[in-house]
Every structure is written in C-alpha cells, then in structure tokens.
C-alpha cells in the first residue's frame, strides 16, 4: 500500500519525539483510504506514553477511545499508530510485532538513532502470534 503523510505532521511527530526523548513517543494516525488505493494520513495525534520509558510504549485505552471518537467526529477514520525509537532503527521490534493485532492498521516508526536525521518508515504487520510477517510500505512525505 502507498501511504502519504504531511510534512507538517512528520515534523510534529519529530519535534514531540525529541521533546520526550529518551522516552518513546506515540500516537494515532487518521485520514482516509482513497479509492485509488492510496492511504492518506491527514492528521497525526500525539498521545501519552503511559510507560514513560525508552524501552516500551503503551497508549491508555481511555485516551485511545477518546481520540478515536475525535477522529470520527472530524470525518476521518483511524488508520493506525506511530511511535518513536529513540535509540534504535526504524523497524518493528519483536514486541512491536507481538502487539500489532490489527492487520488493517499502518504502523509508523520514527527513529531518532541518528542525531539530526529522523527516519520514518511505515509497516504492515499481519499473521498469527509468533509468525507475524512485516512488510515495509511505500511512504511519501508530502
């Protein structure tokens, strides 16, 4: 799947991720799935990482639900989530794969490992626990 994200939303994620580093940052993605097959991320939401560590992130289900309601009220649909890897590459960890239970979601990972050079990638994750497959999606920052 081809995915687009606004440069302003990329920068918003990056600035927030830097501000909370070394903790991981996280949030939700909203937008539309266009008829031509392109997934258009129109808005990025910043949510609290209730773990407050550099090794994990968890989103409070109550905040998640509140944000999903907000997304629907804005005429968009939830498209997945994003989180930062302050010290590691932009690829799903084993824990990321284990907790990726929604194959319709896009999983964006923003690596801060290289100072001044954020790396954002999008992934599709599917399959049974223990044998999940990961596919890197085509992501355009526009």
């Amino acid at each position, binding site marked *: 799947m081809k995915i687009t994200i606004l440069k302003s939303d990329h920068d918003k994620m990056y600035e927030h991720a830097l501000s909370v580093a070394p903790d991981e940052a*996280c949030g939700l993605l909203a937008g539309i799935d266009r008829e031509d097959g392109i997934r258009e991320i129109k808005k990025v939401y910043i949510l609290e990482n209730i773990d407050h560590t550099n090794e994990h992130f968890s989103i409070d*289900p109550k905040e998640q639900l509140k944000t999903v309601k907000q997304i629907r009220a804005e005429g968009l649909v939830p498209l997945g989530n994003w989180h930062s890897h302050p010290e590691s590459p932009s690829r799903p960890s084993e824990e*990321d794969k284990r907790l990726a239970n929604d194959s319709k979601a896009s999983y964006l990972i923003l690596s801060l490992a290289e100072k001044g050079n954020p790396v954002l990638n999008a992934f599709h994750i599917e399959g049974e626990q223990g044998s999940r497959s990961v596919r890197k999606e085509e992501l355009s920052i526009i």
Partner: protein
Amino acid sequence: MIITVAGNKKEYEDGINVATLIEQENVETPQYVTVSINEEFIESGSFDSHVLKEGDEVEFLYFMGGGK
C-alpha cells in the same frame, strides 16, 4: 434495531450480544480486542451475556503498545 459500529450505523437483529456482533463483523484476532459501548469498556468475559440495544455505539479497539 440500529447500532453504530466503528462509526457506521447498521441494522442488526434484536437481542444480539457482543460475541455475536464480533463474529458478524469478522473482527480480527477477537481474543485481543477490547470493546467499548457508549464510551464504556466492557469486560471480555461478558461478551456473551452483554446484549446490545437500539442506539448503542460500539467501538472495537486493540491495545496499542510496543518496545524497542
């Protein structure tokens, strides 16, 4: 009766419970899904006994987390 599921209003049979709704909606990895009805989370152990009513708003959510 009309229920809103994931933002979409649809007609469902009267007396449908949450477990049946999950089946009908082909919810993926249902063992990991969290269900909210009218912005209240319900216990997974009550999916069979929780009967939905006209006008309910249902969301299926997955825990979101990960690690480096």
